[in-house]
């Protein structure tokens, strides 16, 4: 059976599980022919699935819930990432040691749906984000770590498995950095999950197919946890841009494994509800205005057992 998976970002260790499942034949064993489409800064997975370009997408929950409110019924069918890898990384010389020190500083934030946990956090801290003296100045961060290195920002958003290491690679040692994990600040939202359109779930055949897919994917993740270096190499082979380095990918897979540790793919409803809480508390212009209904289901993971 054919199935198309749209990733959220370019081919990298973040998606090791799926590549491993494909490369190691786990999908084939499950009688699936899976096509993996890499993403990028200009690829919005919900748009792709709305346009019929994919059956399943990897997306973060804030973006998926926002899309749902816009009338495209995305449903979470599985959640391979248990924990959030997002954090703020600051240069030590800025004197920031705790979140309260952000006042008056310039912070780099990713936009496009990823800003809500940040806004909600600032809301908790009572800091305004309008650039005034009693708040913080927010920069829209491009998809690299230059603002920190060029000292255009005091802190930038990083993922534990990616940008953080780029900062290190750029020559700023870890002891010169201060990091704040969203997970620790209790403003984390659920990251990489698998989403499908509601109508797929209405078709029992499709549900069964998806169940096989989720199962095989989780097998891929398990394998990646056991063989991180091999998983990194598989990712490298699948990278058509030829731009990834082995060192970085190995590190990334290792970090990713910390996030998927202990996940069976079943969504932790409490975590999902916490995500909703965070998003609803996102300040003046919240990403979602009401509690979503039916935004996740255990139908597929149940069938996968």
């Amino acid at each position, binding site marked *: 059976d054919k199935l198309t998976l749209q990733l959220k970002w370019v081919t990298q260790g973040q998606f090791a599980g799926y590549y491993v499942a494909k490369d190691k034949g786990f999908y084939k064993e499950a009688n699936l022919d899976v096509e993996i489409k*890499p993403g*990028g800064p*200009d690829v919005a997975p919900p748009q792709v699935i709305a346009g019929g370009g994919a059956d399943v997408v990897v997306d973060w929950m804030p973006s998926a819930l926002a899309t749902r409110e816009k009338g495209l019924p995305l449903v979470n069918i599985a959640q391979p990432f248990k924990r959030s890898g997002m954090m703020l990384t600051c240069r030590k010389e800025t004197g920031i040691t705790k979140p309260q020190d952000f006042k008056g500083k310039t912070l780099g934030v990713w936009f496009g749906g990823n800003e809500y946990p940040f806004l909600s956090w600032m809301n908790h801290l009572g800091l305004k984000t309008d650039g005034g003296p009693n708040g913080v100045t927010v920069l829209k961060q491009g*998809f*690299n770590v230059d603002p920190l290195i*060029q000292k255009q920002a005091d802190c930038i958003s990083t993922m534990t498995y990616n940008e953080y290491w780029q900062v290190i690679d750029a020559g700023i040692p870890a002891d010169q950095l201060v990091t704040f994990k969203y997970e620790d600040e209790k403003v984390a939202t659920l990251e990489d999950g698998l989403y499908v359109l509601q109508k797929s779930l209405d078709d029992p055949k499709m549900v069964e197919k998806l169940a096989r897919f989720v199962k095989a994917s989780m097998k891929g993740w398990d394998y990646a946890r056991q063989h991180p270096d091999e998983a990194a190499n598989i990712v490298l082979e699948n990278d058509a*841009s030829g*731009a990834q*380095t082995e060192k970085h990918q190995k590190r990334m897979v290792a970090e990713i494994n910390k996030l998927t540790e202990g996940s069976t793919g079943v969504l932790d409803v409490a975590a999902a509800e916490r995500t909703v809480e965070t998003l609803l508390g996102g300040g003046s212009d919240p990403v979602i205005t009401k509690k979503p209904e039916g935004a996740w289901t255990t139908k597929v993971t149940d069938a996968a057992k």
Partner: protein
Amino acid sequence: MNFIRNSVVPVGTVLLAILALWYAFAIILNAPFERDQAARANTTIATGQLIANTMAQERPVLPAPHQVAEEIRKTVFDISPTSKRSLVYHGGVTLSSTLLGFGLGTLLGILLAIAIVHSRTLDKSLMPWIITSQTVPILAIAPMIIVVLNAVNITGLLPKAMISTYLSFFPVAVGMVKGLRSPEIMHLDLMHTYNASKAQVFWKLRWPASMPYLFTSMKIAVAISLVGAIVGELPTGAVAGIGARLLAGSYYGQTVQIWAALIAAALMAAILVSLIGLVATLVNRRMGVRP
């Protein structure tokens, strides 16, 4: 001999000057980081060492020319052109959609210009919207276009080429509208006395008279096509092509790789532009343009 005096020497001189400037800027722009590093390590750094360091950083603000050259050498010559790490491979991917897009764009531009010059309705109603079409930031709607095209099963080269087409038809259309209207009144009157058909006026007068405009526009269009092809590579998952290299380079802070890809793009464009220049010269010669 003449060629050497008239092109090689001047181009060489200018290139040398640019190289010298480039080195100077590389040192100036990269130095603060080295000083920071020294400060972090609580040491001071001698000027000679500083300069040497600025030219060998792993992620410099501005890589030194030899670093870029080395990267290009590595990715062009050391790696087989079919490998995904070869710049030749990525260049080829981009080139094919550039050429397709440019070809379609030029054709579309010329056809539109012809329609506009010959139809008052189109001149009045279409022209403003052609202009408006270009004020739409293509990068913003490219993803949607590509998603939509994907949905109707158009994939592969064509969606990327369509972005090039979208960008490149415009300079051609604008230039050709001007060019097709540039014949002298008396030359038009002459055709009028022959009661030449619109097609004859077009082929025998408007078209040859518009040649200088056509080639000038085509030079701009081919350069923009390349940009379009690169832009178009991003929303298709940035899997291959110069755009993918740029993106990945910028994403992972591989400044040297960005610059290598940029230079490759620029060289490609220069070759394309000068090819058009060559065609223009040949056509000029055939048309007896006064040297």
